[in-house]
């Protein structure tokens, strides 16, 4: 009988682990940081991410590739044309017939419109451009568009999120849905909402993309990380953005 109740308890735990965090209880990683780090993020002259934004503003106006065009030639001023754009990515790409993230969108523009070689993932230039674009969405709510074409990819992302993987046999949801707010060694487990990417992580001493963060998590559970730009990672990004829908963008954020 005791074994039955133990088993039932486990089942209840498993069921509660799968539940999504209600919108009233969603917390950005910003809320878990100390006073000094919040001040660092909020002050544009202290936030190191602004160095990349500054460089992105320069790159936005610089002509590149065989076409000799700059971003500004098609898109105009980023402060109006790019407002809210990052909050809608990953978005469906008709050519690829699947969602693409902001970095892939920027590279597609580079290859097709500027006729320039694509920028490498985590290169300074790509981070600078994505940080500059993401900065224009600061303060706006995250709102990815989910329609019939996007639905299968959202479901695929949810599967990756809830799948146990790696030598530690952990799923993303076990930490970030079921145990957020509790301690993992010296750190508080965050809910894992991607509100501020690309963000400046003090541990990295650099700006980094959401995919870099996800790959770091995968290594942490001793799983083989997906390659940059892998469909699984983009699907997971899509699921995470959908899971954080309505939350406020604060890119470029600062995190420990």
């Amino acid at each position, binding site marked *: 009988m005791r074994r039955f109740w133990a088993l039932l308890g486990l089942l209840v735990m498993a069921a509660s682990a799968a539940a999504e965090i209600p919108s009233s209880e969603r917390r950005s990683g910003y809320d878990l940081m100390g006073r000094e780090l919040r001040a660092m993020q909020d*002050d*544009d*002259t*202290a936030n*190191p991410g*602004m*160095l990349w934004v*500054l*460089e992105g503003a320069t790159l936005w106006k610089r002509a590149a590739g065989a076409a000799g065009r700059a971003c500004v030639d098609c898109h105009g001023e980023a402060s109006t044309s790019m407002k809210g754009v990052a909050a809608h990515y990953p978005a469906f790409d008709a050519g690829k017939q699947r969602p693409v993230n902001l970095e892939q969108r920027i590279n597609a523009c580079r290859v097709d419109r500027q006729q320039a070689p694509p920028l490498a993932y985590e290169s*300074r230039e790509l981070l600078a451009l994505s940080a500059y674009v993401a900065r224009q969405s600061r303060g706006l709510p995250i709102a990815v568009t989910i329609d019939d074409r996007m639905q299968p990819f959202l479901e695929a992302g949810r599967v990756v999120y809830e799948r146990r993987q790696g030598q530690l046999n952990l799923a993303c949801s076990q930490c970030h849905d079921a145990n957020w707010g509790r301690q993992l060694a010296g750190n508080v487990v965050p809910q894992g909402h991607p509100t501020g990417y690309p963000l400046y992580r*003090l541990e990295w*001493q*650099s700006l980094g993309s959401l995919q870099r963060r996800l790959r770091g998590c995968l290594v942490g559970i001793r799983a083989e990380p997906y390659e940059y730009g892998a469909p699984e990672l983009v699907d997971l990004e899509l699921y995470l953005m959908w899971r954080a829908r309505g939350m406020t963008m604060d890119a470029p954020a600062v995190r420990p």
Partner: protein
Amino acid sequence: MASALINVPARAKRGEIIEVKTLISHVMETGFRHTQLGAAIPRNIIRRFVCTYNGTEIFSADLYPAISANPFIVFSTVATESGTLSFQWTGDNGFSVTESAKITVE
């Protein structure tokens, strides 16, 4: 690529204590790290930061390998006269960046 963010109040009263914030983009490679193949990564740091106020040195700092990437230096000074604050960072591999900011003292 080198860029710096500087924050100096545009206006101040004479005798007022003002806060100057500077942030510069730099890797600050310590020289103690090795690549995965065991080769030492050579040191590449900013060694010195100097701020001058209308030509007079008001603040300087020596930087060492333990200082993190993208050094953020904040200090205070007294607004004595209108003019220019100049900032200079110098370091390994001929690294040298100069920036300036104007201030009006009333």
